[in-house]
């Protein structure tokens, strides 16, 4: 594994402007990624609203490790490797639910929701009865930010707050817009895809450029039937918007306040809702960030937690070098009327869901990249992310390195960060996330 590290710089060249396509298919690199990216980055596990009551649990993944996340009796959250400590079978097979205990289906060991081993059946009592404390579930380090729980396999990495750094300025816009907060509604939807996880992630972390090319037909059909014509904001000749990269985390947005509703059947009811809330958004977030709400946005937390507010919130789980799984959620203001919550769930499914009219274009393109990577020549080509390179700069309002929205600024930041994780000998070698704002809090 160590011998691979010197080979990382030629794979990510020119400050992230060129990336070798080997990183989208090479099995050896993938194994290193599981250890050094998924083994050290903070990975999204769950939102508070997915686990409202004690005993509520859900299953997810950190890299390829199955993780069981459980609400405790005292209201806290704990996360464990979802494997019996005896011989390793998957302990809890349900995707979600509510439980008082978890019993292994193999030898019957029973674990409490706090992860402790509480029963080994009478046949095992003589050998294991006195040693139960040694066999508690493998506990995962977790921390939360604004209702979002993340896990980390490495005890030496910086805190979640430090990992997010200045990116919290952007994240608050979508996860903390009102005192009542947001809600994950409608459950988790899952879809398998035959492409490397980074191809599914980069598409949302950074790629606004593809929208009217890849989704021309889907966008045209939907806009032709809407009750009013509303620009998305990213049309040629419109305002430039921003693409900001904060140590690999990406935020790409316009500020018109309505663009994300352009493809809805009846944009007016959504515009009326955000108009009504706008003064409260401003009060909580300040004018610049309040104006993001309702606008077209895409982005994500490095490495795999992504969002296109109004369309999808998602996580990409790796399933081998050439395969991944997309997990999708709908996220709304808790205060949104039920009728609109339901409409948002439907709209998300129809646009970027498992049957989505836009999703089908993205899935096809990602898999079609993978189709060119298996030969000896194709995998050694470089993908180009140089759009707008050299134009990125610091901005007086927006944290991070900022460029026009239609640029590859976010990709370059993402792959520079990926290379830093891949080259680090230990968690302590990973450069800290940009974090200037704790010194000069002027907004929000």
């Amino acid at each position, binding site marked *: 594994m160590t011998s691979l590290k010197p080979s990382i710089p030629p794979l990510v060249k020119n400050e992230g402007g060129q990336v070798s396509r080997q990183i989208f298919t090479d099995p050896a690199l993938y194994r290193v990624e599981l250890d050094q990216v998924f083994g050290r980055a903070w990975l999204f596990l769950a939102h508070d609203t997915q686990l409202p009551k004690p005993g509520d649990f859900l299953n997810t993944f950190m890299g390829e490790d199955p993780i069981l996340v459980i609400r405790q009796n005292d209201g806290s959250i704990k996360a464990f490797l979802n494997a019996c400590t005896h011989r390793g079978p998957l302990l809890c097979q349900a995707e979600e*639910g509510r*439980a008082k205990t978890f019993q292994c289906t193999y030898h019957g060991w029973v674990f409490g929701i706090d992860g402790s081993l509480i029963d080994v059946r009478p046949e095992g009592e003589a050998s294991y009865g006195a040693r139960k404390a040694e066999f508690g579930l493998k506990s995962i380090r977790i921390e939360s930010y604004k209702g979002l729980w993340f896990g980390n396999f490495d005890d030496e990495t910086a805190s979640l707050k430090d990992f997010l750094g200045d990116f919290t300025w952007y994240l608050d816009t979508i996860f903390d817009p009102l005192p009542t907060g947001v809600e994950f509604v*409608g*459950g988790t939807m899952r*879809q398998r895809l035959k492409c490397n996880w980074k191809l599914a992630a980069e598409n949302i972390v950074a790629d606004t450029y593809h929208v009217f090319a890849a989704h021309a037909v889907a966008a045209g059909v939907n806009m032709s039937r809407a009750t009013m014509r509303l620009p998305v904001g990213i049309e040629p000749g419109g305002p430039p918007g921003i693409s900001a990269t904060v140590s690999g985390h990406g935020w790409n947005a316009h500020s018109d306040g309505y663009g994300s509703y352009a493809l809805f059947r009846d944009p007016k009811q959504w515009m009326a809702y955000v108009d009504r809330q706008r003064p409260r958004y401003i009060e909580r977030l300040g004018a610049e960030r309040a104006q993001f709400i309702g606008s077209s946005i895409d982005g994500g937390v490095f490495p795999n937690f992504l969002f296109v507010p109004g369309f999808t919130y998602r996580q990409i789980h790796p399933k081998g070098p050439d395969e991944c799984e997309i997990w999708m959620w709908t996220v709304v203001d808790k205060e949104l009327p039920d009728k609109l919550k339901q409409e948002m769930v439907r709209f998300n*499914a*129809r646009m970027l869901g*498992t049957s989505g*009219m836009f999703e089908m274009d993205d*899935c096809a393109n990602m898999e079609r990249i993978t189709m060119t990577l298996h030969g000896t020549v194709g995998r050694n080509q470089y993908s180009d992310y140089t759009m707008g390179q050299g134009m990125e700069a610091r901005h007086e309002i927006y944290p991070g390195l900022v460029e026009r929205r239609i640029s590859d600024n976010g990709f370059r930041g993402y792959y520079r960060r990926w290379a830093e994780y891949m080259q680090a000998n230990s968690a302590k070698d990973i450069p800290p996330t940009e974090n200037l704002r704790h010194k000069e809090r002027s907004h929000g």
Partner: protein
Amino acid sequence: MADQALKMATPEIHLAFHYLLAKEARMLDEYCYTEWMELIAPEIHYSIPARRSHHIRDHREKDARKFDTDHYDDDHESLLLRTMRLANPAGVSSNDPRPREIRAISNIEVFAQEMPETYRVNSVIQLVRNRLLDDDSGIVGRREDIWRGSVATGFLLVRRTVWISQNTILMPNMASIL
């Protein structure tokens, strides 16, 4: 089995639905979406619910959420949007070249409902979709339909719920209509 109280339709009606479901499958296989939309009632509710993987002993399923996400939760307007999108091969599209889709329909049961000229029609659909040269995927679902009409006037689809077997969708996007 909640069907035991249901009344079997006459052999004539049963036969009519055998022909109709086969014809409908062929319309979709052949991308005849305009014709397919002519079979759809204005008040259609077309639904493909998410299939959850819950422990049998866990009763949370019943009260966990106000609403679960469906793969499809469509009315006439949204089905029209989807079919317009699928029918349009212009520009960059994942459907060009056309995928080759084959729908097999089986396990057909036709029951007369209390309301006149209204039929509950159960069937199983197996869709195989092959794209480009060798990209093969598929999905199977148990359909529960409500159709309205008569042999003389023809039938319109009022409600369709498709209970697919997959939790994680294993085909790259479920853009094909079942």
